């Protein structure tokens, strides 16, 4: 359920972090930016795996409001990562009056991302039931839904208990199997949807479309599961006693 994703990004290292090992600063910046966040069409980012290469380090005098200052390409790209504790004074920089230098480094790195493949079997815990289906969680990822049509059939929604029930038929008659909260459940991933939740106006045509207005915040990444096969559903249904 986890994949390695190759990415490229620019990380800005402010002066007060120059003293720390550069790799640590970069790792911290990348994790700050990505950990526990969903990247559209990629998955849920977990943590940095490694840094594979760095490119085009720019050191430019000062930052802040003005972005018209020229970037000065740094000539010591490779050695940057080997300097144990570079003080700003050792780097070939230009700085004007009170401006302090900033490092802008383009990094190639690999990130560990949660992104189960289609048809993958996963085990999670039932978070609860609603008329929409059974909601499942993995602890670190919560937005999994098993819709009513993908449950073991025949299934009915018990309004009083707010729980889905599998009306399992045997020779003796129907045996009600309740899908209680907290139970462990084995399911197959049958679909996924990414929603671009960045606040840039109306969603594009490719985003998951819904005919009605969504009053609440939509999850950026959701999985749709199915348990309509032998072996799927609550683990307790299939363990031999």
């Amino acid at each position, binding site marked *: *359920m*986890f*994949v*390695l*994703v*190759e*990415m*490229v*990004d620019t990380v800005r290292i402010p002066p007060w972090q120059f003293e720390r090992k550069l790799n*640590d600063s970069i790792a*911290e910046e990348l*994790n*700050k*930016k990505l*950990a*526990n*966040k969903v*990247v559209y*069409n*990629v*998955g*849920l*980012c*977990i*943590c940095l*795996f490694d840094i594979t290469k760095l490119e085009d380090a720019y050191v430019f005098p000062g930052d802040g409001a003005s972005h018209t200052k020229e970037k000065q390409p740094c000539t010591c790209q490779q050695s940057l990562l080997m300097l144990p504790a570079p003080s700003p004074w050792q780097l070939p920089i230009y700085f004007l009056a009170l401006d302090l230098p900033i490092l802008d480094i383009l990094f*190639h790195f*690999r990130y*560990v*991302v*949660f*992104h189960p*493949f289609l*048809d*993958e*079997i996963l*085990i999670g815990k039932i978070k609860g039931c609603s008329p929409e289906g059974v909601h499942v969680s*993995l*602890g*670190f990822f919560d937005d999994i839904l098993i819709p009513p049509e993908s449950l073991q059939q025949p299934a009915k929604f018990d309004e009083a208990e707010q729980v889905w029930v599998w009306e399992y038929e045997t020779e003796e008659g129907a045996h009600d199997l309740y899908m209680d909260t907290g139970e462990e459940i*084995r399911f*197959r991933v049958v679909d996924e949807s990414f929603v671009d939740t960045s606040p840039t106006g109306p969603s594009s045509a490719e985003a998951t479309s819904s005919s009605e207005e969504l009053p609440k915040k939509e999850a950026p990444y959701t999985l749709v599961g199915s348990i309509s*096969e*032998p*072996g*799927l559903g609550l683990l307790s249904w*299939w363990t*031999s006693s």
Partner: protein
Amino acid sequence: MEVKDANSALLSNYEVFQLLTDLKEQRKESGKNKHSSGQQNLNTITYETLKYISKTPCRHQSPEIVREFLTAMKSHKLTKAEKLQLLNHRPMTAVEIQLMVEESEERLTEEQIEALLHTVTSILPAGPEAEQKKNMDDVTMDEEDPA
């Protein structure tokens, strides 16, 4: 930020377990910055993911076990995704194998499924829950047998 390859490699639960465990150790040692607001997200996701993976069979795996498993798997002619699922889940029944191996009725005979189950359960160590159950079974056996 740009994504160069969204599917550069598949990772087994064991590899992620190792990575997160090492990361936890590293951060414990370096101490100071763990609780800064920027690191909260990393803390949360690594804690929750580690909690989840620790309850799966990969907890007791090692690089040698994984290597042995993959070598043993060569003869069964399974896809990478199928081998990964077997590694992550350590299925103990034929039904589970049928879920993880596509079109298993056509590709595997009953004997082959049994052989596959045997390979999986003998090379991969049992998960924490299975061990608990095993311990409980042992206890009950002791109780039944006073001698």
